[in-house]
């Protein structure tokens, strides 16, 4: 594994990861409360893409109107969150950084809940109010958390960041409880949103997620070399000529934008951004030019599998997807924390 000739993610690696993602996607849409044969699935999706007439039966309805948009959304959310996690872990040189451990996801949720409770909308763009509020709150949370962390401990050590993240999450959830208490007739829609998960996502949601991933994710991917420098050390990044302030701000905005969109559509799904980059790092190494693209695919696959478990484990009952990722993530957290302490 030490012998790595290329710093970049090579073509065949893209193909391999993409193939794995497509296979997982097909598996995810086949399996469910109603099993659909693999061949039918492929036919229906193929015909759906080209707008051809569908074979008779319920299969096409289940696949195209319910399962496919959901699985696509799950994949995109997984990819986005793990890209964000990978970027934060590099930027802060901290293997435990992630939207959920830093409290950014809670901040975004608070923003979304406030938007629903106070009926903040943007004219002609329903849902955009929730999304924009989630993004703004995600960014503000990041600023508060990092500002506090810098103030208390300039080196931004793992322990300080995680502690502040936990405290901030608790703070955000208590504010959220207060808002919910006074929300009156909006209570139902808020509860529906917090339970949210990705059940019943539409193709429109998928498009929004895709656009956010292309835009914000693109910004993050373009900063892979800067993230390498930050992962070696912020001081070192400055010494080799990285515009530390500008890059940091850009990445933080991109990360909060992406997390905000994901949270506003899928609710908080913890630990995806923590676990995936870590697993991917074991496979392709810490260089962000390889780590970030691999995290994209890895995150999509990881979340689709978690979603599959959530849907099928207690069939016909469905677990929230966040429960599955949190159980896996909590175990992984302990493991990563242990090994990161040993590494010192």
């Amino acid at each position: 594994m030490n012998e790595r000739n290329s710093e970049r993610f090579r073509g065949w690696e893209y193909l391999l990861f993409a193939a794995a993602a497509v296979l997982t996607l097909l598996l995810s849409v086949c399996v469910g409360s109603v099993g659909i044969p693999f061949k039918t699935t492929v036919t229906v999706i193929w015909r759906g893409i080209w707008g051809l007439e569908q074979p008779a039966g319920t299969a096409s309805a289940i696949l195209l109107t319910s399962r496919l948009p959901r699985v696509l959304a799950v994949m995109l959310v997984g990819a986005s969150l793990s890209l964000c996690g990978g970027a934060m872990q590099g930027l802060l040189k901290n293997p435990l950084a992630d939207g959920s451990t830093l409290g950014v996801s809670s901040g975004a949720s608070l923003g979304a809940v406030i938007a629903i409770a106070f009926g903040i909308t943007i004219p002609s763009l329903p849902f955009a109010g929730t999304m924009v509020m989630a993004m703004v709150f995600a960014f503000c949370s990041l600023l508060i958390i990092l500002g506090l962390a810098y103030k208390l401990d300039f080196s931004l050590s793992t322990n300080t960041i995680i502690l502040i993240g936990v405290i901030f999450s608790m703070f955000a959830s208590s504010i959220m409880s207060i808002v919910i208490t006074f929300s009156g007739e909006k209570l139902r829609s808020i509860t529906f949103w917090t339970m949210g998960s990705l059940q019943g996502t539409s193709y429109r949601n998928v498009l929004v997620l895709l656009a956010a991933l292309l835009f914000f994710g693109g910004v993050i991917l373009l900063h892979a070399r800067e993230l390498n420098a930050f992962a070696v050390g912020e001081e070192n990044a400055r010494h080799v000529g990285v515009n530390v302030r500008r890059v940091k701000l850009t990445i933080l905005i991109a990360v909060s934008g992406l997390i905000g969109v994901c949270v506003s559509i899928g609710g908080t799904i913890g630990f995806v951004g923590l676990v995936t980059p870590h697993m991917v790092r074991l496979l392709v190494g810490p260089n962000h030019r390889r780590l970030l693209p691999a995290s994209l695919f890895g995150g999509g696959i990881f979340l689709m599998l978690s979603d599959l478990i959530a849907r099928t484990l207690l069939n016909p009952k469905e677990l929230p997807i966040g429960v599955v990722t949190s159980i896996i993530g909590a175990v992984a957290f302990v493991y990563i924390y242990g090994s990161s302490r040993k590494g010192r």
Partner: protein
Amino acid sequence: MLKVENLSVAYGDLTILNGVSFDLAPGEWLMIVGPNGAGKSTLINAITGGVPAKGSVFFEGRNARTMKAHKLARGIGVLAQNHFVGYAFSVEEVVRLGRYAYAPTIFSRHSGEEQAVRAALEQTGLYELRHQSVLTLSGGELQRTFLAQTFCQDPRLLLLDEPTNHLDLVYQKQVFELIQKWLKQEGRAVISVVHDLSLARAYGTRALLLDHGRVMADGPMEKVFSDEVLNRVYGMDVRDWMIRMLAQWKEA
């Protein structure tokens, strides 16, 4: 090539640097010496803009404060005293970061990256270790990795903050000899913070003595290292101490 004017750094009421000024010409190796807390490392940081400072710094006639980060990095390389790399980057990946300043956006291309990386690895004797993870290196190898990164950056001025602080004698000698060789090239200069006065004396061409953030002496080695100046700043007979230390080696 470097002109520092009236540089001051303060944290609240605490003044760390107080109106430090000096000029540096190509070919010089300026040793910044002084007791603990004199402001030596802060001076290095203030020159590169790592801490907020009053006063001005001109590099080759241009204001270093307003220069773009990557342009400044092409001229000034910095070697810090400690490195804690969090992830298992390979030696080559860390060294390669030194070329960032020459292609600061993903769209810019520059030729000669491979040669520069290879030359820096060979110069520091790390070519065989290039694929090894930096987490597995010894302190000396890690310091050489970052020295290679700085060489790869191809600056004209090298700033070193106690480059051999945690290194044993073998590595101290290695690192200082590498830097001395590097300095022999045309148009280059070195500023280093050094605790060890013997090392400073052996390699420096000039010294700047700091105490409590002020310049106590600046000039050729012999002048700054005179008994009168050193004894006043360190509050002890420095020469007598050094000679007594060395005498033990003679007897054996």
